[in-house]
């Protein structure tokens, strides 16, 4: 037995056999799958293999979906008691749990994220979201919005590609629990789990038209946003598009919630528990390939521990496994699309040109597919573009600070305000910092933790409204006082 044999993990692939992907999909309207017109491919970003042909929703499709949603709302869903609505949501949650593995594999194939993440994070949270909201359907009078809050009607929901099924759950579950019906458009590059979800709706015998899924691209989304038959828009995506939507609906009566971008500060004080902090930094920016709106993309290190933390961070990054998302031991998977990869490469090049020092561990990246090695830039300051602009990839900008007040000032010095991290073993300082930070979600000695009971959303240009928890319900109900 050699004394220094490396423990190479043999390939541990999850089997694809559990999923059946049709060669072509239409839309899900009025409880049925209906054919689409034009089609475009959805690919596996790890291999560039074409998985299926997806329908590009046009005006007729969106019209049909909104009509079906309105009919279902008026005739069925708004007449049904909360008790019965809740039971449909419980059924959906339970079927998602039953088909969890199938969903996880499909999500990984379509999105490029590691199977471990789909299996252990995305899918369980999505099912939990339905289970939680199922229980609100007949308890809305306790939500703090009056004795009998009313739904808004038909919600148009547009979701991103980074957590496809989970974002669907965050949108559909509260909408339905509150009594609305929905027209949902999954992201262009990740429609497959939404289409499988449509099958779950059928298995749950959800009344036709309560959930409608129209696939497509940005133009499809615009049709939904601008449709006069929509009462409420819920959008998760870039701040840029969020502003376009806000302007578009301004002259209308539509309600809007927006969950947009971020450039979160992850603040490490000198009394942080170092090893767990390093894990938190890694998790904060490399989890889901950094495709996370609330990613801890600005590391703010207290200057007196910066060297030690960076040293440990680099050692830890050497152990990150980048590769085949279907391998159970992969930590970081593929970048979701060619377009996104180009953006990341461009902004990383900006970092170089701005004089920040780039470092990545040695990584063998596959030949096909879209890949970017986990990367850190040190010597970054607030005036750098890479400290200001959202990269949405596995790239960390590292800055330093001297005092707690300076840390807060730097953390808040951004138009974004989605999330922040605080690492310290001193409770009073952690609470003080959380009080000062202008961010909607603050993680202390942890990061990227989500729960259906915990409201999520941003300050400032990171969006409007919250999702999850009691607070998240108000996005789908008419309060007593609002006009």
């Amino acid at each position, binding site marked *: 037995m050699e004394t220094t044999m490396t423990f190479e993990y043999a390939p541990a692939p999850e089997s694809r056999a559990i999923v059946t992907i049709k060669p072509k999909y239409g839309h899900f309207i009025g409880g049925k799958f209906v054919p689409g017109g034009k089609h475009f491919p959805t690919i596996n970003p790890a291999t560039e293999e074409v998985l299926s042909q997806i329908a590009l929703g046009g005006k007729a499709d969106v019209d049909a979906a909104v009509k079906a949603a309105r009919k279902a709302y008026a005739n069925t869903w708004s007449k049904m008691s909360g*008790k019965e609505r*809740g*039971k449909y949501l*419980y059924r959906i949650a339970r079927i998602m749990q039953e088909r969890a593995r199938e969903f996880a594999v499909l999500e990984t194939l379509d999105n490029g994220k590691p199977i471990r993440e789909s299996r252990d994070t995305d899918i369980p949270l999505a099912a*939990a979201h339905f*289970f*939680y909201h*199922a*229980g*609100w*359907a*007949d*308890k809305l009078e*306790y939500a703090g919005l009056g004795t009998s809050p009313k739904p808004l009607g038909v919600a148009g929901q547009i979701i991103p590609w980074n957590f496809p099924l989970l974002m669907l759950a965050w949108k559909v579950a509260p909408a339905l629990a509150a009594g609305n019906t929905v027209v949902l458009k999954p992201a262009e590059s990740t429609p497959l789990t939404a289409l499988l979800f449509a099958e779950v709706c059928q298995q749950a015998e959800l009344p036709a038209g309560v959930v409608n899924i129209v696939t497509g691209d940005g133009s499809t989304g615009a049709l939904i946003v601008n449709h006069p038959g929509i009462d409420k828009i819920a959008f998760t995506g870039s701040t840029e598009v969020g502003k376009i939507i806000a302007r578009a609906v301004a002259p209308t009566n539509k309600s809007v919630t927006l969950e947009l971008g971020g450039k979160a500060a992850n603040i490490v004080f000198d009394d942080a528990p170092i090893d767990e902090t390093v894990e938190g930094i890694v998790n904060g920016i490399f989890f889901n390939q950094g495709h996370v709106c609330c990613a801890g993309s600005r590391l703010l290190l207290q200057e007196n521990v910066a060297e030690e933390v960076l040293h440990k961070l680099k050692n830890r990054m050497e152990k990150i496994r980048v590769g085949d998302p279907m391998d159970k031991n992969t930590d970081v998977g593929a970048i979701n699309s060619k377009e996104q990869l180009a953006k990341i490469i461009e902004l990383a090049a900006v970092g170089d040109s701005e004089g920040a020092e780039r470092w990545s561990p040695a990584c063998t990246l596959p030949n096909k597919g879209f890949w970017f090695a986990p990367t850190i830039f040190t010597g970054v300051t607030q005036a750098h573009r890479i400290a200001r602009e959202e990269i949405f990839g596995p790239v960390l900008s590292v800055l330093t600070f001297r005092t*707690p007040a300076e840390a807060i000032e730097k953390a808040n010095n951004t138009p974004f305000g989605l999330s922040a991290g605080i690492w310290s073993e001193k*409770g*009073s*300082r952690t*609470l*003080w910092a959380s*009080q000062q930070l202008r961010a909607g979600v603050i993680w202390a000695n942890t990061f990227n933790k989500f729960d*259906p*009971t915990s409201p999520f959303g941003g300050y400032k240009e990171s969006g409007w409204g919250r999702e999850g*928890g*009691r607070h998240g319900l108000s996005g789908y109900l008419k309060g007593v006082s609002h006009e």
Partner: protein
Amino acid sequence: MSNRIDVKKTYKLYINGAFPRSESGRTYEVKNAKGVFVANPCLASRKDLRDAVVAARAAHPGWNKATAYNRGQILYRIAEMLEGRRGQFVEEIVNVTGITKVKADKEVTQAIDRLVWYAGWTDKIASLAGSTNPVAGPFYNFTIPESMGVVAAIAPESPSLLGLIDAIAPIITSGNTVVVLASTKAPLSAMTFAEVLATSDLPAGVINILTGKKDEIAPWMASHMDIDALDISGLSSKKHADIKVAGAENLKRIHSFKSADPGRIIAFMEAKTVWHPIGL
């Protein structure tokens, strides 16, 4: 029409996830509405109560530490199992109480839906009963509602199944464990319900069900120093005063309810308020 002989069920107690007979060896007769013999359920003794409390106490830390999500899923599972066996429950209720099939069906439906309703409270009651409090000082101050421990309950004589659910579910939603005395005249649904519990991933000891006489068991519940609270909704109001006097020995929280609402859950929770300074 065959002359097949039924295999009749023996009704025992449900303690610590198992089905023991009463340690006293006693039973009592249950006749149906027509006066025909149906079964000999156990006549629980104070020692059975004692054993049930031991089981409930042992089960409390684990059940209390389980996530609200987990508790909710188990409550929902109980509803799934009950729904699957609704026919048996309807038949049993009709036979023993003599109410019509339509009424029995309605009761069973309500019981299932009530369980689902409580299942949805586990992860929401904290939103209602907890708070952060804006004290006049540099402190983070928050109130968390917590379970109390072991709660004993007396279920109403009727409705025998729905009343039992209302006696049990609000107590365990928040993490308490429970010892419940079922309806005396119509105890069989309670024991069949115990079979549902045994197939619902419910940890042993979280729910314990006794059958017997209220006048015998209630005073022992009231005086037991390791029971934290009582739900005496099923006890005649004439007897409440005596129970409260006995319960004062360890200051049990004693409540009686007329209906189901979240207050019923909160009544069996304690509010804990924490102060923590905010500063560098």
